[in-house]
């Protein structure tokens, strides 16, 4: 099986989020970056399991600058065979998807996998866009994936239950929790990663369709207001005028 896994960097979940340049840029100073967990723990690891069971290869692709190299080498240490980095700023989902599909279009991947979202922008778009651009079936939010021959069986959670899907390879999917277990790269993997190929390619033509105008943090949680049980009318008034829920 020939598998392509899209991985991107995301801020560590304990990072303090702030903005610069008049709230138009995410402030990366002091932020630790990790492999986006949905890409790493689920998509990449399941890809490796499929390769171990069926043979083949796992390539990772990242759209980003050289600052993404540490997370790419982590993916190599976990076990990907080689990596590609499209040397461009990942300006929006459409741009990223067009770069990935441009790279993948003539390489006959059986599977193209992404995480269901990145934990920073939570866009959930790249997988679907890539599938559209490559004209392949798209399975979103997959929590379990099995492949027998060229038939893929996938499960995903839906409101109040589970859905089981079946389709033929090649396909694109986005991975959610449950598809695999986290693998910690071991010493052998870390040392081997040095010798693996990380190919940097220029961006293909393509444009971003959206632009971020500015950022803001969610409003700070305001203090709790305590209302005496005697004054139910005050409560109703506040729920109506301040909380605007009734």
């Amino acid at each position, binding site marked *: 099986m020939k598998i392509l896994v899209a991985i991107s960097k995301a801020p560590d979940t304990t990072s*303090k989020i702030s903005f610069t340049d008049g709230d138009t840029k995410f402030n990366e*100073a002091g932020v630790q970056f990790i492999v986006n967990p949905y890409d790493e723990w689920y998509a990449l690891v399941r890809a490796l399991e499929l390769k171990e069971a069926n043979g083949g290869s796992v390539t990772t692709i990242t759209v980003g600058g050289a600052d993404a190299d540490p997370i790419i*080498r982590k993916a190599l240490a976990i076990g990907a065979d080689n990596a590609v980095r499209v040397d461009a700023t990942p300006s929006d989902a459409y741009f990223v998807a067009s770069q990935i599909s441009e790279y993948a279009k003539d390489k006959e991947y059986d599977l193209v996998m992404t995480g269901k979202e990145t934990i920073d922008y939570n866009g959930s778009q790249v997988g679907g866009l890539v599938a559209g651009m490559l004209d392949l079936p798209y399975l979103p939010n997959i929590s379990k994936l099995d492949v027998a021959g060229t038939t893929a069986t996938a499960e995903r959670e839906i409101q109040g239950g589970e859905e089981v899907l079946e389709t033929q390879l090649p396909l694109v999917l986005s991975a959610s929790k449950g598809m695999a277990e*986290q693998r*910690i*790269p*071991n*010493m052998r993997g*870390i040392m081997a990663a*040095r010798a693996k190929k990380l190919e940097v390619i220029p961006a293909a033509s393509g444009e971003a369709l959206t632009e971020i105008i500015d950022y803001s943090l969610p409003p700070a949680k305001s203090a709790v207001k305590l209302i005496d049980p005697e004054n139910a009318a005050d409560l109703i008034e506040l729920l109506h005028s301040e909380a605007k829920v009734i």
Partner: protein
Amino acid sequence: MSEENKQALGGGEFIIKDTDAMDIFIPEEFGEEQKMIGQMCTEFLAQEVVPVIERIDAAEEGLMPSLLEKAGEMGMLGISVPEELGGFNKNFVTSMLTTEKLGAGYSFSVALSAHTGIGTLPILYYGTEEQKNKYIPKLVSGEWKAAYCLTEPNAGSDANSGKTKAKLSEDGKNWVITGQKMWITNAGFADVFTVFAKIEDDDNLSAFIIDAHSEGITLNPEEKKMGIKGSSTRQVFFNEVKVPVENQLGERQIGFKIALNILNVGRIKLAGAVLGGAKETMDQAINYANERNQFGRPISKYGAIKYKLSRMAIKIFASESAVYRASQNIDDKIHSLIDSGMEKSKATLKGIEEYAIECAVMKVHSSEVLDYVVDEGVQIHGGMGYSAESAVERAYRDSRINRIFEGTNEINRMLSVDMMLKKAMKGTLDLMGPAQEVVGELMGIPDFGSGNESELELLHKYIKNFKKAVLMVAGSAAQTLMMSLAKEQEILMAISDMLIETYVSESVLLRVEKLQKTEGESEMNTLKMNAAKAYIYEAADKINILGKEALVSFAEGDELKMMLMGLKRFTKQDPVNIKELRRSIAEKMIAENKFIF
């Protein structure tokens, strides 16, 4: 910085010579691969160890050995072992980083350190080719677990006084070992023991590799301990245990030397490990302080709590600076010895032995930093810190052992001064020349400085003065008391603490100086500079008090007066607003909700 231009100081030389900041290694310079290795350790603890910590501490049968096997699969048991023996041949600094990261693993980290350190290293460093090939790959993979049997009921700090005996069997094929060992870490599941015993009526110990499953070996039940409850600690009895003669480790009577050299490594490794534990507690304390509300606001808003948090962080930062500085010195020495044709394991031993003073000094400092950190960690948690359900309670109990094993802190303090004076007597460290110079300076007009030194220049002057204080006190104590100084332990202890504070102060200053030179200005570098300033500020007063204690204990009359004046001069500093320095650090940690350095 090219390697050739580095001016590496010899062991203990820091007290008489200056170091160029660009020549030291600082943790900010870890490379991508080293960071990945460190992260592997952190993730391993989070995934495999922390979720089962209660079961570990309940000493669940088979759990600890299975975790060690998993660590072996990850490659964590052979970081610096040569590749031909199944390891990864990483340098000392990298293995220190893994030690630090894994140091946050409570009892697990004790079991792991005992296995990879005192368990594996005697064979790695002193074993014959056959012995290494037989044991090391299996110890690295985790298939076999190791323990180190030195201590006996009546031979603790005085390890060479052990009574365990080895006699040659009549057919000359076996050593027959009889004796009792106590406090043996990993004894409950170890497969391989390194045992120290005296052959017949020898004065000194010899060492033996013994199959733990041999006939004649029995164990007492697990010791009931204050902390590290998940670490197996048992007495081991040897009753006429037959050991093939080829299992003797090293030559006859060099066992004590093996024991001491292995302890040198163990000491600096312990210093690294406790930093990992301290950082973990640091994070927990900051988190709790931010979450806990009293009098209508988070307790992290209170100055008393900020004071604690910042001092914890400053001490960790300073201790870490010195541990990695020494580790890189050791690495450089090892490499220069290898380059001059020495075999790796020999070079490693020699490299570590060269810096035995720094190893002893850092063992003491870091273990006491950890004790400070866990103590204040509990305090910040208030009643919750006293609850057996909080992580800091475990950290508090687990911390205490570190001042006792790998040589008690008293023994290490005494050793640090003793080794220094021995080097001086052997002529490998010129203490007396510089000490005389200081005395000369006392007679002259004090240097009041130009008044327009830069901040860094001023701080460097303080460190130079600390060194002068140590040289003055140690030099005159040695001259006045001569051979009887060894019996004046109170004085030795004071000198040792002056030495420790000086080494750590210099290390933290060199670190921030290098950062300023390589990274330039940033908010974080300002905070790190504040930490260095705050550390050095406190150190000056400590050195002053310690110096006074020592001086009044042996000097008299005009000489005493003159030296007390000198000491005052050498520990004088311009006033700084220490509260603001500390607050800057605390406030950043509170905002980030984690340890920032």
